């Protein structure tokens, strides 16, 4: 690839937050027509670099040049006007507005000064169809799952006529198909000469799409490399500053599960998920696979009492129980780590310590506080185990990097030592090192007798961890496959695509949308 003049050049960028030096003399350049990956562990400073570039935070030191001119944006609006379109890490959309508006707000098509709603909806539908997404575009965005929201944010960003496109972990909850759609669009934009900055913790994705990468460690630049010239092992080594041990095989010996812990019989909720029957045994890890919006999250929420089931029943340890509230489920030692940490997980203004002990405290009630030294022990232990950084329990959670926030939410539930732990996309935005750590932890806990319901868009992860995989399609549990040596991601994909006896998915006509839903 011919080196042309960089469209964007950042030099000597420094950014100090109270108590944390997030960026320290970072140089970065972006060439037109390339996909440039920004790599680094959780908290390395990737998002901060992006925010400093687009004027969300002012820079402390250093200069930014766009197309050869010095710039300093006062905010995303200015950056956008200068031709930088950004998808920030947490999905930052207005969920109270409709899908169409989220795509177009600020640039609505207008006719004689007034917003042309009809055209806006039509264009939104068209644009989303380009990503193979068929949504009711006038419905409020809050009705859709996080993955869909992520796609809408991407649709918005790529529709803005930009010279630079920044995507900060856009794929963290997308399944393989969606990722493929995104890559298709990225390749086309790249061909049009647009410079793309891409952040992801999925190394395979990086190697598939990126031309070049810049690696950050602890706020410093490690170096800039051509993707083709850096092996995965070398990359990881540069990111974490040491060699990563080979992922050992989890679940050594084959286990026999004969003690059912949680049994769902005909459990379902109209419009969300069709009645399903599922048994989870003690010590068993059950994976749930399915496409975006297939109903995995809904299954988890029903089992936790976060939503009311309107059909079926659940028994825990043999006796039928009513899971009317999360609190009731927690009474039966069921825990649920939700996929949307921003909406359903974090209390942003509380500290790391408080966020971690929150669920434990809730089970004890307000009158019996967890003694302070016990808190410090527990929290300190998990900060170390999950490598939460900065390793300060009194840090406000809102100031943590995305991946570290995810670890905090995880720690909250691990601390409870539940009998059934439901993990919905628990490794969202978590770096390779920590991901292995979490997987090991899950395996260890299940060996100790804890049951786990594991939901992930990453099929490899599901396969690595689970003893049994449930496959959902169109909000229906279509198959339950034992995870023996014969089960591969290919088989899984096939099941997802065709369903057990279902017709293969056609192209998204309106009829398809409601397929399966009651």
């Amino acid at each position, binding site marked *: 690839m011919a080196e042309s003049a960089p469209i964007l050049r950042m030099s000597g960028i420094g950014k100090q937050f109270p108590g944390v030096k997030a960026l320290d003399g970072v140089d970065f350049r972006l060439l037109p027509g390339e996909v440039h990956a920004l790599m680094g562990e959780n908290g390395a400073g990737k998002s901060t670099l992006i925010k400093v570039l687009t004027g969300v935070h002012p820079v402390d030191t250093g200069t930014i040049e766009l197309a050869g001119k010095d710039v300093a944006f006062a905010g995303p609006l200015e950056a956008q*006007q200068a031709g930088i379109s950004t998808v920030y890490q947490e999905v930052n959309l207005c969920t109270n507005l409709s899908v169409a508006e989220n795509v177009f707000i600020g640039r609505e098509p207008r006719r004689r000064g007034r917003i042309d709603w009809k055209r806006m909806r039509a264009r939104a539908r068209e644009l989303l169809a*380009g990503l193979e997404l068929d949504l009711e575009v006038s419905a409020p965005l809050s009705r859709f799952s996080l993955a869909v929201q992520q796609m809408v944010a991407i649709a918005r960003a790529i529709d*803005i006529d930009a010279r630079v496109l920044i995507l900060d972990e856009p794929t963290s909850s997308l399944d393989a198909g969606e990722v493929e759609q995104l890559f298709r669009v990225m390749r086309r934009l790249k061909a049009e000469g647009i410079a793309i900055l891409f952040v992801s913790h999925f190394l395979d994705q990086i190697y598939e799409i990126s031309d070049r990468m810049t690696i950050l460690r602890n706020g410093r630049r490690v170096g800039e490399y051509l993707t083709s010239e850096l092996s995965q092992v070398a990359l990881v080594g540069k990111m974490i500053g040491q060699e990563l041990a080979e992922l050992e095989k989890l679940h050594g010996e084959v286990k026999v599960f004969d003690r059912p812990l949680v049994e769902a019989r005909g459990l379902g909720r109209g419009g969300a998920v069709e009645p399903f029957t599922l048994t989870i045994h003690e010590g068993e890890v059950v994976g749930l696979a399915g496409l975006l919006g297939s109903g995995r999250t809904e299954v988890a929420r029903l089992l936790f009492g976060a939503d009311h089931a309107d059909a079926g029943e659940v028994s825990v340890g043999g006796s039928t129980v009513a899971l009317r509230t999360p609190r009731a489920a927690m009474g039966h030692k069921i825990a649920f780590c939700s996929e949307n940490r921003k909406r359903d997980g974090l209390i942003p203004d509380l500290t790391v310590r408080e966020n971690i002990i929150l669920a434990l405290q809730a089970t004890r009630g307000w009158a019996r506080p967890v003694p302070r030294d016990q808190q410090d022990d527990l929290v300190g232990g998990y900060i170390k185990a999950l490598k939460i950084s900065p390793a300060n329990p009194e840090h406000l959670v809102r100031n943590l990097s995305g991946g570290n926030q995810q670890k905090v939410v995880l720690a909250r539930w691990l601390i409870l030592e539940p009998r059934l732990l439901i993990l919905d996309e628990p490794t969202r935005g978590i770096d390779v090192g920590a991901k292995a750590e979490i997987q090991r932890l899950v395996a260890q806990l299940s060996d100790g007798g804890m049951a786990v319901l594991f939901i992930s868009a990453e099929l490899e992860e599901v396969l690595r961890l689970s003893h049994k995989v449930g496959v959902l399609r169109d909000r229906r549990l279509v198959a339950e496959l034992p995870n023996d040596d014969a089960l591969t991601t290919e088989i899984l994909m096939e099941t997802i695509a065709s369903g057990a006896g279902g017709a293969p998915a056609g192209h998204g006509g309106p009829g398809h949308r409601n397929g399966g839903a009651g």
Partner: protein
Amino acid sequence: MRRLLWPLLVLAVLLIVNVLFTPSFLSIQLRDGHLYGSLIDILRFGAPLILVSLGMTLVIATGGIDLSVGSVVAISGALACLQISQDASVFGAVASALALAVALGAWNGFLVAGVGIQPIIATLILMVAGRGLAQLITDGQIITINNPSYKLIGGGYWLTVPFGILLVLAVLAVTAFLTRRLALGMLIESVGGNAEASRLAGIRARGIIVVVYAFAALCAGIAGLMISSNVSSADGNNAGLWIELDAILAVVIGGTSLSGGRFSLGGTVLGALVIQTLTTTIYSVGVPPETTLLFKALVVTVVCLIQSPAFRQKAFTRRPRTTAPAPRAEEKAEVIV
């Protein structure tokens, strides 16, 4: 506690202004075995406001607001005075007034947490109807009583210190214990910070909300007893009029956000003291009644500006800033597929 620095500064400035006008302002004497002086007055008259603000702090921390505290002040004072005027025992009168206050607060909490009505409207109902209730109790008259032991609550002294101040200290201590020593505070902040996440973390938000509104009403009830005892009479219409506004202001000056989440009891006490000192300053400096409000506007503006980090930064540091030669990105005519 750096957050409290700025309200403290404002308080100090107000006190200095007073000293300039009344040199003896800071002096505290022992007169008839009572502490006597302007500072004591500020604490004594500020006591009801501090109490109401403490309750309000917790309500606001859950993301709510309680407009009905003023009415509860009137109701509790009215009920207590009515019973005392009918020769009931002081203890019985106080107990029943506070019980009624708690019940009214629980009612508010029920409307908010149980029925799901927005707090401002839920408590507006009691704000309006409660005034009527208070006047119903007093039959629209001012009930005057003459009872030395009731007088103690708001107008009396104990060990040379005004009893009201001691009462405030006691309530403050209990509140601080419940919220900071026990886990109530964290759970409240969690509910106010992110209600859905709290629910999913297993917190019984409803119970907490009802408790918090009941507590706010209890504080208002005690404040009502204090106010009526201080003047030995119950005035259903005027007691506690607009105190909810002052209380909310005190909470906000104290650094608690109206959108819920983190709260600071110390800040609230400080905020209430700032407001009361301001009132006293207006009286003793001799601000004419027509300009009182202008003066208040000025002080409130200064307080909120000086508390704002953005303002301090803009006012005290000037950093040149280059802006982008921003070519306006045109809208795309075509939709890319």
